[in-house]
């Protein structure tokens, strides 16, 4: 070791330390925002077709706008004391509904623009919805369009001979990037003649589900579709397919395997064979400003879905140029809402700037908005109290009783239900008497009064109270009488005083509040019914996997309304529904839900749904516990903030009263 190095080492170390220190404390300062709020968590994606969840919802609603927009009713509270969400004009300034309640004609407002200044047309919606439905987009919310004629068929790539189909050839312009569904390869369109399948693989019974699905999927990819490709005619309007003329037959497969398939034609490689979007899916642009959508059934809440983020338009040029997720980066993303994305740093903040190209820009008063992803409720409250946030949410439940009287604590009932699922495929939960006994023995009032404490309502039904037009099945809580009834039911089920009742397990995902509630229920069941209950907390991923595999007896759940209609709660429990997870199935229930969807008469539809809920509550595959209330802390100088049933707070309706803010900061408006 050279001597000078040894000599210099301490100095070098100190110099290095100082240099890195200097680097570490150098920051580019950014000007403060007009409004800072907590978004609760990191946003996973800002692609409307891929997002799910509340934090994403808030950002997407600021960045994009649908044909209509969901806003709190300016008229205020309804007779139930709830502030409903109504649909105000968005990109469409008006729409018409046909006499059979199935066809919506949306009129795009003239002059609607993207943030890059290009015009926004009906074709943008057709393309965006097509992208949402495309199986390769793998959107979790694609089912929001299932009400549209042909949409589900396109999304699930189901085909039958005689269908009009589109074949996407394997010639996409960008091969280097895996996730570039768009721009698509060449589309050839025609009629599906038949599907030639290789012999179905013989899968042994004991094969795990995942492996089974994999084998079936591999097999499906080898199917060869024989399609009669129809001739096209070009004119200045674009391309027309001459469906009536005869064409030549070709065979296509995602994974051509001529040895296994006895197909006389040469099998060409394709990306997809799907039903022909343009002629099958009833989403049509008739001109630049008119979008016509036809639904399978009259769906009164469709207008609310149109205002929900999965159906927001995305900019075709932007998505096709940068691919997904490349197009979502600040600087690239083109959107059409009241705000544009300025910066986005993971776990730091999302900064939004006002979009000067927005059609209603003159009424958008906030210029810069910061959304923080603060997950710790305590930190969020501290940031709010010390003035770093103007709008804080959620509030830690322990301090709610102290905050409740304050004018800046804004709370309202929400369309969200906290409930327990029962796995009805396993004893003892397969016995309806047991499930009813368990439900009645829960002291729901105690849970909302001493655990959650924010004014939640004990649930007597699954659909939360106050759904417009809907009357819940009758139910009341008289705890003493209910407990007596619960004991009787348990006895009738063959377990008098809980004798012989096996130990059951309640699963919940790791969270303090869930544990406390589960503990109350555990002691209720023990004291009232003599039943031993084991509590088991699982980390979210494991919890979900137990739920999917039905590897549970009782499990905690919650459901947030996707739209303001009882159907969002009730259609969960149809046989094998993707949200059912309980194994419960009832033919009468399925029929009521199915028929209600087709019913045009609102009163009759609601009566059917009510009947369905009566069945659900009598059979009790779920134990409803309480319905939620929202908790927001909002500074008095933030205006345009309305508590409502969906806890939706569109940023473009809010503004800062600068005068009041000054007085507030000087301490003249006392922090209560």
């Amino acid at each position: 070791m050279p001597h000078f190095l040894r000599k210099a080492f301490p100095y070098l170390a100190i110099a290095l330390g100082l240099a890195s220190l200097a680097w570490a404390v150098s920051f580019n300062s950014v000007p403060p925002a007009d409004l800072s709020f907590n978004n609760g968590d990191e946003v996973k994606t800002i692609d409307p077709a891929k997002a799910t969840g509340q934090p994403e919802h808030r950002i997407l609603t600021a960045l994009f706008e649908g044909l209509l927009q969901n806003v709190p009713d300016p008229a205020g509270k309804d007779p139930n004391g709830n502030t409903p969400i109504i649909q105000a004009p968005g990109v469409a300034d008006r729409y018409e509904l046909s006499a059979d309640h199935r066809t919506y004609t949306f009129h795009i407002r003239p002059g609607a623009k993207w943030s890059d200044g290009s015009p926004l047309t009906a074709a943008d919606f057709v393309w965006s919805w097509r992208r949402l439905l495309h199986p390769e987009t793998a959107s979790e919310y694609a089912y929001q369009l299932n009400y549209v004629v042909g949409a589900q068929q396109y999304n699930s790539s189901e085909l039958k001979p005689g269908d009009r189909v589109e074949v996407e050839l394997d010639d996409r312009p960008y091969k280097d990037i895996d996730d570039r569904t768009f721009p698509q390869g060449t589309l050839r369109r025609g009629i599906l003649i038949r599907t030639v399948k290789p012999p179905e693989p013989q899968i042994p019974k004991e094969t795990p589900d995942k492996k089974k699905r994999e084998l079936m999927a591999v097999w499906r990819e080898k199917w060869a579709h024989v399609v009669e490709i129809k001739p096209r005619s070009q004119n200045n309007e674009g391309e027309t397919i001459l469906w009536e003329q005869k064409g030549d037959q070709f065979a296509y497969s995602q994974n051509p395997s001529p040895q296994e398939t006895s197909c006389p034609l040469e099998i060409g490689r394709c990306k997809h064979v799907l039903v022909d979007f343009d002629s099958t899916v009833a989403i049509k642009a008739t001109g630049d400003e008119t979008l016509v959508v036809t639904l399978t059934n009259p769906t009164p809440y469709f207008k609310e879905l149109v205002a929900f983020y999965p159906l927001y338009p995305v900019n075709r040029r932007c998505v096709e140029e940068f691919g997904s997720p490349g197009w979502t980066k600040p600087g690239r993303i083109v959107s059409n809402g009241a705000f544009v994305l300025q910066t986005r740093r993971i776990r730091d903040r999302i900064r939004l700037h006002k979009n000067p190209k927005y059609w209603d820009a003159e009424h958008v008063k906030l210029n810069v908005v910061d959304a923080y992803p603060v997950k710790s409720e305590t930190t969020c409250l501290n940031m709010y109290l010390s003035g770093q946030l103007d709008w804080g949410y959620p509030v830690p439940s322990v301090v709610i009783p102290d905050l409740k009287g304050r004018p800046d604590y804004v709370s309202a009932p929400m369309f969200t239900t906290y409930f327990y699922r029962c796995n009805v495929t396993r004893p003892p939960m397969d016995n309806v008497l047991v499930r009813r006994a368990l439900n009645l023995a829960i002291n729901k009032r105690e849970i909302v009064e001493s655990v959650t404490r924010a004014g939640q309502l004990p649930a007597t039904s699954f659909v939360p109270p106050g759904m417009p037009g809907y009357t819940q099945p009758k139910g009341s809580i008289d705890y003493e009488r209910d407990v007596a009834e619960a004991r009787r039911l348990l006895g009738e089920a063959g377990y008098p005083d809980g004798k012989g009742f096996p130990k059951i397990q309640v699963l919940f995902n790791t969270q303090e509040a869930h544990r406390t509630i589960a503990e109350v229920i555990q002691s209720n069941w023990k004291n009232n019914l003599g039943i031993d209950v084991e509590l088991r907390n699982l980390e979210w991923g494991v919890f979900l996997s137990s739920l999917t595999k039905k590897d549970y007896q009782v499990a905690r759940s919650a459901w947030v309304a996707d739209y303001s209609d009882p159907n969002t709660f009730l259609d969960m429990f149809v046989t094998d529904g993707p949200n059912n997870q309980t194994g419960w199935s009832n033919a009468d229930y399925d029929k009521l839900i199915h028929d209600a969807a087709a019913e045009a008469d609102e009163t009759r539809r609601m009566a059917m749904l009510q009947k369905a809920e009566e069945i659900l509550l009598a059979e009790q595959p779920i134990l409803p516990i309480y319905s939620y209330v929202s908790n927001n802390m909002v500074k008095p100088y933030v205006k345009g903030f309305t508590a409502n049933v969906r806890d939706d707070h569109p940023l473009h309706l809010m503004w800062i009263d600068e005068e009041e803010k000054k007085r507030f900061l000087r301490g003249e408006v006392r922090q209560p």
Partner: protein
Amino acid sequence: MKFLLRRAAWMLLTLWVVFTITFFLMRAVPGGPFSRERQLPEAARRNFEARYNLDKPGWWQYFNDLSHYARLDFGPSMSLEDYSVNEVIAEGFPVSVSLGVISLVLALTVGMTAGVISATRRNSIYDFAFMALATLGIAVPNFVLASICVMLFVFWFQLFPVAGWGSLDKLIQPALCLAAPFAAYIARLTRAGMLEVLNLDYVRTAYSKGLSTRTVIIRHALRGAILPVVSYLGPATAGILTGSLVLERMFVVPGMGTHFIESATQRDYPLAMGMVLVYTFLLLLMNAVVDFSYAVIDPRVKAE
């Protein structure tokens, strides 16, 4: 040179072993990146899996991933869908480093000063006070410390903002809390090292040459006493640089610590793997640096 090459070879081997273990362990845990409360339609699930190559056989994924990681391409994140793992690390790592550097400098300055004072004034009131503080610093968990910090500096004295990132005043509280246990540990190590060295002959010789106490301690004794601190610094730096979940949560610091935990809970395989490998790499690197500086500080140690 040979030393460096051998070190690098070992490092690669260790990284490969860690990669292999992590790869199989992750996939053995129940649940997957696409577990949702609502069951996905089969077609959507299939396309999801295809996007991340999860539809391929296990061995195929293993070698495919290995070849990508070897080229430092960690692939797309599954939970932060708009980002690649490289982008996530590129955003989070500098934050953790700048916080780490400050904490480290703080921990070293405070810890060593306290250690030296305690050792030279053994059994004095300073010694007791510092060592009591050090014990407390090790024992008190960082979220308690952080809460105390917030109460003191935000609500009582109104010196700093509660949380956030992007300016110096937001950085001080998390840096303090992150540094505290390390400072405490360093103080104890320095004190122990110092006490051992102060009784050695060469220190006595230095004193007898008539050098001042200050010169003896800083120029002679400290060099010997610092060795345990240096070897502790390796793992400590790796730990400090990769951030802390609790502090990042409480102070809303956009560092790497959160990703460590969340990638695991959300079954974000590529991100979790990226985090594990970055941590392993840092740990190995820091240990190598420590070994190297050992050789510089202590003439008895040779780099081999």
